[in-house]
């Protein structure tokens, strides 16, 4: 489970425009990405989120998992998500 404290600070509007008040960077997030962020903020774990993506977007679980991991990697590269290892460091 990743540390989502930075993600919680992200200010996101309904159109997918996001502002990071720590770095000053802005992002455009897809509607799917918006849902994922919302679910993560609500406290859903990885397995839950993958299941929600599969249900909501009518894709198979494998596709949902691949897309979810890709999105997590993007969040991580922008410093918006920290893995437990990086937090420990």
């Amino acid at each position, binding site marked *: 489970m990743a540390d989502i404290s930075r993600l919680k600070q992200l200010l996101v509007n309904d159109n997918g425009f996001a502002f990071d*008040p720590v*770095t*000053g960077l802005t992002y455009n997030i897809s509607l799917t990405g918006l849902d994922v962020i919302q679910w993560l903020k609500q406290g859903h774990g990885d397995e839950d989120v993958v299941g929600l993506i599969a249900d909501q977007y009518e894709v198979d679980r494998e596709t949902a998992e691949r897309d979810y991991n890709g999105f997590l990697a993007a969040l991580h590269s922008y410093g918006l998500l920290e893995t437990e290892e990086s937090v420990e460091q």
Partner: protein
Amino acid sequence: MTITIAVTGLHRGENPQPGYGVIRSLRRHRDDLQIIGLVYDALESGIYADGGADVVYQFPYPSAGTAAVLGRLDYIHSQYPIDIFLPTLDSEIHLLVGVGNEFTRRGIRTMLPSEQSYAARSKSNLEQLVAEGDQQTPRSESVADVERLVYAAAQIGYPLMIKGQYYEAYKVYSQLQLVDRFYDIVSRWGAPVVLQRFIEGPEFDVVACGDGQGGVAGMCTIRKTILSDKGKGFGGVTIQDDHLNSLALALIEQLEWYGPIELEFIQDAITGEFYLLEINPRFPAWIDFPSACGLNLPGVVVDGLWNGELPSLPRCSTGKFFLRHSIDLLCDLEDMGTLAAVGEWKPVPK
């Protein structure tokens, strides 16, 4: 009771000065003000902008020396008794730090740092300052001649930044460019210049008003979103980075800074570490931006000097941004001619 405040640095344009932004902030803050604009050139654009000074006087360049500056101030003071003097340019503050008693003797209030604080933040002393505070600044060398310039550049490595002692900073890629820029900067600002290792990454600015005891009366942090060719922030967004704020506050505490201060940082794009680029003993040109957001630091200075106690302002809200916007001012040649010929001019209120 009307407070009379003298403000310098009214030029806007490609390399904007803070004075006009300071005046706009003061106008936002209170109505009972009479503003005197002190200018070096009749073409300083802020002279003719709406909401500017109530009266404008030509003023000698700091290079004319303390006696000339104070002499002119005495004349202006005899025409419009000055309550508060807010110099906004580095070269002026360099001259005026240490002669605060001259203002006190005249009944003029100023908010200037101590000589010790001022010297400790100079570009040539920055490495020592950050080392004492366990912070970082890009490797720098202060040089005054071409031989040492070339040697120091070889030690630091290209590309690097070359900076004037008060203003201007350029990125140079070769010895040829370096020497060319060296003569260029020295011709305007004199020697020495500072060479600084170039770090790639986003730039950040912190503006504050120090209370002289290690604290601040208010502080605003921005990420620069648009940089001009001269490295000036032509756009920025307010942020709240606790780590960056703690670095800035630690430096202000270390300096026991009194008055306006601007701290410039760069964040290494690879390591994420912040490096202090420079500390300016004044407000930045974008000072009216936080004022418009509710953090009016020029207002804090005036209230502090007037009431004898600095008020404490809340943090600047995040997610507000500014863009520098140029417009053409319509001016009457006769007005400019009066100021140039007589040395003073009073705009007709609109």
